[in-house]
């Protein structure tokens, strides 16, 4: 392709990427570096149906003047990133110097919102991603060996968990696992413990969230692997059979190597997705037990007072987190690409 043709061909994509990816990121980075102006407070008398009370309020005229002078707010540098709501450097340093044991240090870390969220997010990501790949692969291989009349129906039902909107799916399951719900009662019966509640303990909530995560995302892996299986080289497979390879050996030495690029692809997408885990936490009302970076952003924006700078800083940290998480896979892809050319 000529450079000129390529330029015109790529221009719409480039513009869209600039508009919808680059600019928002720049905007978020800028917002995370600035904070609102220092509040000019007034003592005022507020009156209402319950009488009058002397309270504090914001002096809007003085604040408006400040805002006009510096519309972005105060420049805060990295201070938002370093405060207790985010990386909490001072608190971590204090914990480290005052530590009695390594375990005590980690317990202290879990008390800080960012590290608490990271603890759950990373556990979730690294438990759910491999499990859903394995499960998706197993379903794909299973469905592929079904009789062709059955395939359509089974594929449809296997895809259902992905079709359900995450928030709705988790809400429905949240009600089902209630100690008086269908699943909750069944689990109580199986565990022979009438007081068992999946919602009341942190460990069980984590397991619930992860099971949900696998349930929801396995169909994605399944679809991708199933599509990959359709391109399986039949001659290789046949020669393997003639050589007397068992079904397991066929899968191990023919199918899996053939699907490996797709595994990388699914891992990439799912690492990214799982790192941003959010809907199940809201749907399962799990914030007392598990939080994630996305949930912190949501909470900052949804409180009585919006914390825009804080939410922006957490967003940037999420982007950095995703980049770090994806770097091994990206490096590998890059190497493969170079090796081929």
């Amino acid at each position: 392709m000529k450079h000129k043709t390529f330029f015109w061909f790529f221009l719409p994509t480039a513009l869209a990427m600039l508009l919808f990816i680059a600019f928002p990121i720049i905007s978020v980075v800028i917002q995370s570096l600035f904070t609102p102006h220092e509040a000019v407070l007034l003592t005022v008398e507020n009156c209402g149906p319950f009488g009058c009370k002397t309270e504090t309020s914001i002096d809007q005229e003085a604040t408006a003047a400040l805002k006009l002078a510096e519309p972005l707010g105060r420049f805060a540098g990295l201070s938002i990133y370093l405060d207790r709501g985010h990386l909490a450097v001072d608190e971590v340093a204090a914990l480290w110097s005052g530590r009695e044991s390594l375990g005590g240090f980690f317990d202290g870390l879990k008390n800080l919102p960012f590290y608490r969220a990271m603890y759950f997010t990373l556990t979730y990501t690294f438990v759910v991603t491999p499990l859903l790949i394995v499960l998706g692969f197993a379903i794909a291989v299973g469905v592929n060996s079904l009789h062709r009349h059955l395939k359509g129906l089974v594929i449809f039902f296997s895809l259902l968990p992905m079709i359900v909107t995450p928030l709705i799916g988790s809400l429905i399951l949240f009600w089902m696992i209630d100690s008086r719900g269908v699943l909750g009662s069944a689990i109580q019966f199986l565990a022979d413990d009438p007081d068992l509640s999946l919602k009341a303990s942190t460990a069980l909530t984590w397991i619930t969230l992860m099971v949900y995560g696998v349930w929801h995302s396995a169909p994605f892996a399944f679809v991708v692997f199933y599509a990959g299986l359709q391109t399986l080289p039949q001659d290789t497979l046949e020669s393997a059979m003639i050589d007397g390879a068992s079904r397991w050996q066929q899968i191990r030495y023919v199918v899996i190597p053939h699907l490996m690029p797709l595994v990388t692809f699914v891992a990439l997408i799912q690492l990214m997705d799982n790192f941003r885990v959010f809907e199940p936490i809201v749907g399962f009302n799990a914030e007392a037990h598990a939080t994630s970076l996305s949930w912190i952003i949501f909470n900052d924006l949804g409180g009585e007072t919006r914390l825009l700078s804080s939410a922006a800083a957490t967003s940037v940290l999420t982007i950095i987190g995703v980049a770090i998480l994806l770097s091994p896979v990206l490096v590998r892809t890059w190497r493969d690409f170079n090796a081929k050319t």
Partner: protein
Amino acid sequence: MFLKKITTAVAISIAATAAAQAAGHSNCGIDAGRVNIVGNEFPAIQTVGAGAVACANDNVEVKTNLTADHQKINVAGMTSNPAEYTSAIVANSSIVALMNEDVIRPLDDLVAKYGQDLKKNQLITVNGKVMAVAFMANAQHLVYRADVLEEAGVEVPTTYEEMLAGAKKIRDMGILENPLGGSYKAGWNLAQEFNNMYIGHGGEFFKPGSAEVDINNEKGVATLTMLKSLSEYMSPDFLTHDSNATNAEYRAGNVAMMNMWGSRAAGLVTEEGVPQEVVDGFAIAGPMTVAGGDTPATTLWWDGWTVAKNISDEDATATFKALTKAIEPAILDDAEVATQAVWLIDGYEPTEAAKGVFAAAAANSVPYPMVPYQGLLHSALGAELSDFMQGKESAEQALADVEAAYTAAAKEQGFLN
């Protein structure tokens, strides 16, 4: 139930629109303008929204967006110029965010011109300027099951200590396993229960005249200890129960006593499928005190409407007129509307369901503070108390965490250096 609520809401707004169209030129005295209202959704607010929508005609567009997530969208929707929303229905907590961002306008001139029928105590004034018009009052108070209390021989509690003793008796007698209910969901609800109980203990949230938080003290610890003791008589899932879920537990007959919102009391047992003994046993009383204090462990609330700053005067006038019409005394002629809330509207006669809120006001309960940084403390409490409630950390540690979280947020917002 959620679906039913949505269907009802949709049905109401469709019906209201249809009624407005049928009436053609309705009698709200609006010639032109645009009205768009954002607010919370519960029955009383639905009524006010529908009343405003009824003012729509060929020249006046009236829209409402009533959702439990109203606080996530109202500031953003009123910041632009012209603002998307011409009015936000708020409470004494949420008006603060709008005032902090300076997106609502003083209403003095509009009140003088078109608001003669509003009562003086409906006008919310800040520094002498009318910033909102309140139409209802609300408070959390005791809701109980008279039949269960009688069976257990427990008096209706007036203090939280009595409530605890009663709960123990009901459990020991094997009547109910978890006799207490409460909206203790981690986040806003749990923080609100802390606020109630802390006020009941006579606590002050901030050092006098400053934004510096001061809750890590004996009263704070006593507050948390009481919340924890109460939670031991609740469903083990209490950290996931908001007021909807708590009401569902009550309707199912699992709860004998709970601290519940007055605005929810009227509809508590009118839902379909509530067992007859729950309907018959349903009773309400005033809020309780704690630790021998005089101030009830609750807060008083008003709900009211505001008018956006960044809109034309024409739209502001239309909004003011439509909402004034929506809360005119005539709406109380509908018996169902009259029970929906403790209306602050002229001519309101307290119904049986309003008893609890009136008792709260009569017992000198304090209003939820309208302080610019109270919301930050509320969020910090909501995020940091759940570890203590699960027994993972001490009360002192939890309160220290709240103070640290608040301080970081208050520094960011420019309330502290």
